[in-house]
């Protein structure tokens, strides 16, 4: 039989997605441990997470600086001794500070865990925050900031949340060059005392997490003294200006960075699954409306996309791109056009099918392997959701109609209600 190259081979529906699920339990001191065991792996990722993200900082940048300095010296070991210790085991030690959480993350061979975990505990329990390290770190970060501040994309990202939320909102997290001078060692120590020391933390561990590894975690962390969570009231009110567009000119910019978006709904909201699908259609994958128009048809950009960012106390929608500066206005026009189309016209059967299947494939990829599956769990855990979130999402995807897509866009994706940040030239 002659090969028919014109027709796609039989498509098989994705009818079963195996959710590799985390198991959770508590240590003696109440600390929650969540784990996913994949026996055939030889490596582990272990994350210790605190409610010490940027929204909790009394001063700009304090959360991220304190977090980064955790590994730069402890009561028993200098920064270089710590680095040496972990590097010697072929391990990787990272710090991560988001708006809501701050973590220390260890990547290592499973066999190294008994040796490294006690060391990790010592670091996060008794960091030294020496004057030298604090100064050194601030200097390096300041220079990094100065370089980054020359990038239109970085500046647009920096300005976006303050613009849609108002400067006072804790999520705005403004960073400016002068702020680096304002951080002192005492500030760092105080923040550590408030947000890390004897504060509740959670452990997320994935990979080869068998009996032995769990025992080590137990032995190491069960006895850590944990008080109740420090109560604080970050400012979450939204108090943005009336202005709908912010333009920051950059003299010789050959590209402009554009951000279009607003406050939106999060994963906890009943409409989220529908909005998620609508967002995918609009700008959430390579064949999206925005990509097809602005990149593949017009060639204005190397990349354009839209996203729904969902956190504990804030959710927002944003379209991002960097375009040739001479087509900045054209791009805004096309963004408006595509968003209006989503609200005015019904998506056709074929496109809807395609996006549904693409998203199902993505969910499958999202649970592929212990590390990815743990990322999914972290997201659910942070949002206070269970795995039925995914059952609900899949169900919505399978059932959603073109009319529902259009309606959810009319509700949440109106171009006129969006704020715009442009960095470059207009």
């Amino acid at each position, binding site marked *: 039989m002659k*090969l028919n*190259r*014109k027709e796609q*081979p*039989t*498509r*098989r529906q*994705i009818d079963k997605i*195996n959710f590799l699920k985390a198991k959770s339990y508590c240590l003696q001191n109440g600390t929650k441990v969540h784990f996913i065991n994949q026996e055939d*792996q*030889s*490596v582990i990722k272990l994350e210790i997470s605190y409610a010490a993200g940027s929204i909790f900082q009394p001063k700009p940048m304090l959360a991220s600086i304190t977090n980064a300095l955790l590994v730069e010296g402890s009561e028993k070991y200098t920064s*270089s001794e710590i*680095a*040496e210790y*972990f*590097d*010697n*085991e*072929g*391990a*990787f030690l990272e710090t991560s500070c988001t708006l809501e959480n701050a973590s220390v993350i260890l990547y290592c*061979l499973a066999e190294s865990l008994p040796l490294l975990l006690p060391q990790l505990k010592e670091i996060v329990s008794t960091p030294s925050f020496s004057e030298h390290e604090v100064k*050194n770190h601030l*200097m*390096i970060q300041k*220079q*990094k900031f*100065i*370089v980054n*501040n*020359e*990038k*239109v994309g970085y500046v647009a990202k920096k300005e976006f949340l303050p613009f849609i939320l108002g400067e006072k909102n804790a999520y705005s997290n403004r960073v400016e060059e002068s702020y680096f001078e304002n951080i002192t060692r005492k500030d760092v120590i105080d923040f550590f005392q408030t947000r890390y020391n004897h504060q509740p933390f959670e452990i997320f561990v994935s*990979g080869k997490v068998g009996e032995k590894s769990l025992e080590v975690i137990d032995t190491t962390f069960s006895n850590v003294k944990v008080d109740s969570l420090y109560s604080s009231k970050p400012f979450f009110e939204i108090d943005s200006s009336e202005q709908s567009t912010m333009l920051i000119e950059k003299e010789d*910019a*050959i*590209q402009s960075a554009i951000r279009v978006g607003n406050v939106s709904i999060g994963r906890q909201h009943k409409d989220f699954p529908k909005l998620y699908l609508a967002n995918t259609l609009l700008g959430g994958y*390579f064949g999206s409306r925005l990509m097809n128009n602005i*990149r*593949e048809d*017009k*060639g*204005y*950009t*190397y990349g354009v996309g839209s996203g729904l960012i969902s956190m504990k106390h804030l959710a927002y929608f944003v379209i991002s791109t*960097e375009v*040739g500066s001479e087509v900045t206005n054209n791009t805004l026009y096309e963004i408006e056009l595509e968003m209006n189309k989503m609200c005015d016209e019904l998506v056709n059967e074929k496109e809807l*099918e395609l*996006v549904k*299947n*693409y998203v*199902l*494939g*993505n969910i*499958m*990829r999202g649970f*592929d*392997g*212990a590390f990815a599956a743990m990322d999914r769990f972290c997201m659910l855990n942070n949002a206070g959701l269970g795995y039925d979130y995914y059952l609900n999402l899949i169900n919505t995807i399978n059932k959603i109609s073109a009319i529902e897509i259009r309606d959810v866009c009319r509700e949440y994706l109106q171009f006129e209600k969006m704020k715009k940040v442009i960095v470059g030239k207009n």
Partner: protein
Amino acid sequence: MIEFQEFELVNGLRVVFHQDRSTPIVAFNVLYDVGARDEDENKTGFAHLFEHLMFGGSINIPNFDSPLQAVGGENNAFTSNDITNYYITLPKSNIETAFWLESDRMLSLAFTEKSLEVQRQVVIEEFKQRYLNQPYGDVYLLLRPLAFQNHPYKWATIGKEISHIENATMDDVKSFFSKFYHPGNAILSIAGDLELEEVEQLTKKWFGDIPKKEKVVRSLVPEEKQLEERVLEVEKDVPLDALYWAYHMPARNHKDYYAVDLLSDILSRGNSSRLYQKLMKQTNVFAEVNAYITGDIDPGLFIVSAKLNPGSDFSYAENLIEEELNRIKIHGVEEEELSKVKKKTKSTFEFGKTSVLNKAMGLAISSLIESPQLFNEEVEYYSRVSQDDIKRVAQEILVQNNRSKLIYKSIKDE
């Protein structure tokens, strides 16, 4: 050890298959043995532009991405000076779609005017976004032609200049395809929960009838040995002074490649590395400092790069770096230092095994360099590097006459 099986079709297509039962996702990787080094000096940026065009529709399939997305697949590609690599991940139940798509675009592209026009613009935007509109973005555009006077590595993958991309014609593009995009010039690497029989059967079904073509025999102009230091100083609108030192190093399949790689690790991998500890932690001179290799197949570069804090004296900074390099040349390295970086290599390999895509890609690249077995053997090669090897390669490579220096000054110094 990653187990794999290999076979070859009559038309020259090499196939590597690694079975991984732990995942519902299959990685499907097609590597073409063509990169920026294969371009004409006056028509650079082609391999990369071509990568873009590969998504513009093939002879029987007008749209590459949609049919793939419709079966839950994802894909991407990249081009380097040596290779152009395309990869797909998709649920295994739809594996045949990957075979269908990749074989058709190996057979022939649609070559539409619209596709060429649009991708031309997209690549130009990419040129701007990544190389022109970023501080220090054009470093490689300056450093490459300084370090390489003869060999095609003298231009970057993105192209020497935007005008080459602007002037690309449909004929240029068609002849590029004809020359480099055929079975004998490709390696197909698949990793996932499949059986060898079905991989063989599907490969023969979809790729079997693609005509065999003669493989291009490379005859690139070899780089002549550098006899004295080259220096280029530029002034740019960036916040910090920077420097880039490029030394010539052995080819990917040279016995000393691994020693040179570990030398760069001892200098700069991880926070316990020499440059980080001595220069970043113990002085205030640098905002950042790194040592790394380009990883090229032909003899490539060993690079030391640094950004200086404002007010740092340039000569003083250079001397500090020079001192560290000399220390190794004179005294060699400690056994613990060496075993430390070897351990990192091993753990990186172990982490790599957790991803089907990583395995498929690694097997393809290893096949190109030597054989798929290289993927497993490399950890062993790294472990055999001795302290003497490190000292010796440092003495051979890190010499002034082998160096091209790019001094990238901030105009804000005025």
